[in-house]
């Protein structure tokens, strides 16, 4: 899957599943500081990503996800490895 496809689908998940503001979502956006995602929201985000892309994201990898771009990169790496 291309990164642009991942971005499109992730954006859709963030808006519909997590209720985030579509206009604020861009690769540089930080989940915590820019998108107001709290600690439970991070868990919801990881679970939604796992469901949407059929990947497993262990805690030690999840810790490195701070921005939308990092989430896209992680999914891209998992789907193409």
């Amino acid at each position: 899957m291309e990164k642009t496809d991942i971005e499109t689908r992730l954006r859709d998940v963030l808006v519909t599943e997590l209720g985030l503001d579509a206009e604020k979502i861009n690769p540089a956006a930080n989940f915590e500081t820019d998108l107001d995602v709290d600690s439970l929201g991070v868990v919801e985000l990881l679970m939604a990503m796992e469901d949407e892309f059929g990947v497993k994201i262990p805690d030690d990898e999840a810790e490195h996800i701070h921005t939308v771009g990092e989430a896209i990169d992680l999914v891209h790496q998992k789907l193409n490895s």
Partner: protein
Amino acid sequence: MANAMITGWGKCMPEAVLSNHDLEQIVDTSDEWITTRTGIKERRISHAEVSDMSAVAGAHALAAAGKTAADLDLIIVGTCTGDSLIPSTASLVQAKLEAWQAGAFDVNAACSGFIYSLVIGSNMIAAGTHRTVLVIGAEKLHYHLDFTNRATAVLFGDGAGAVVLEATDEDVGLLASELGMDGSAASILCIPEHGTSGDRRNPDPRESGINMDGPEVFRRAVTTMGDASVRVLEKAGISLDDIGLLIPHQANVRIIDATARRLKLDPAKVMINIESYGNTSAATIPVALTEALESHRIEPGAIIVLAAFGAGLSWGAAVIRWGQRVEPLGTSAAALPPNNRSTMDLLAPNLEFFGHLASS
């Protein structure tokens, strides 16, 4: 083989209310923080004991079933906050109801306690050893609220719910169930004190409160409640589309919403009352079931799915086919003794024992 039909239901919610605004006075928190993270607006604080709430809820359930305490041959109380270590809370409930023909015992499966108790009671009826069983879920969790711990102090409350199970030849009652446990992860949700592992010479208040790794419990709860619900439906040969109402354990509205999303369930088919009571552990499901009936959300013959997740880490799920009757046969005037103390007065022992924001 006899089936176990739910023929009566009832609840007992203590009068004293602890609102989010009240909590702002004693915990470093805000109504907005609590509401957005949990969906809880207020909870009840009991001036009476778990056995008192249980007996009141039980009396209402018996009246709804058109039964008396003398008809009971078994009482099961799901609780992790019983009045005393011994006797069991079920023993005290038996005496309060004067259900002298009934055997009685407690089940400690924390938040899954009601489903565990319901499955045990239903299977006792299926085995033919019992005919009329009172199943109660009841807690006085405020006893363990540590107001220096804002992650848990805002979540829990007190209350009780009960159902009467009766043997029947009709094709109703428990269709399939699952009782699960992952003891390897027990430490992410626990109250370490109050057992023989504690050091009674140096009691640590922190260990007497509810200790929880919230995000990890959240993740496991959503996955497990959703997956267990799917498995029991498969066992029962029933499709997700045929669910009349999902009554999940009320721990956090975001756990409930995420579970419903995973099951792709219409929100109209999910019972939620957490805003009024918070997490009352084993009591949430029988209380929510009672309120679902009171608000006419259960149709005759409906398929009901129950799912819970809690300390242990325990979980339970059950599929029930409801009977034809959704109205109570009778009512009871049973109530707790009058309460003349304020909510803050009832919480004074907690503030003294655990401390609180203002004194730290």
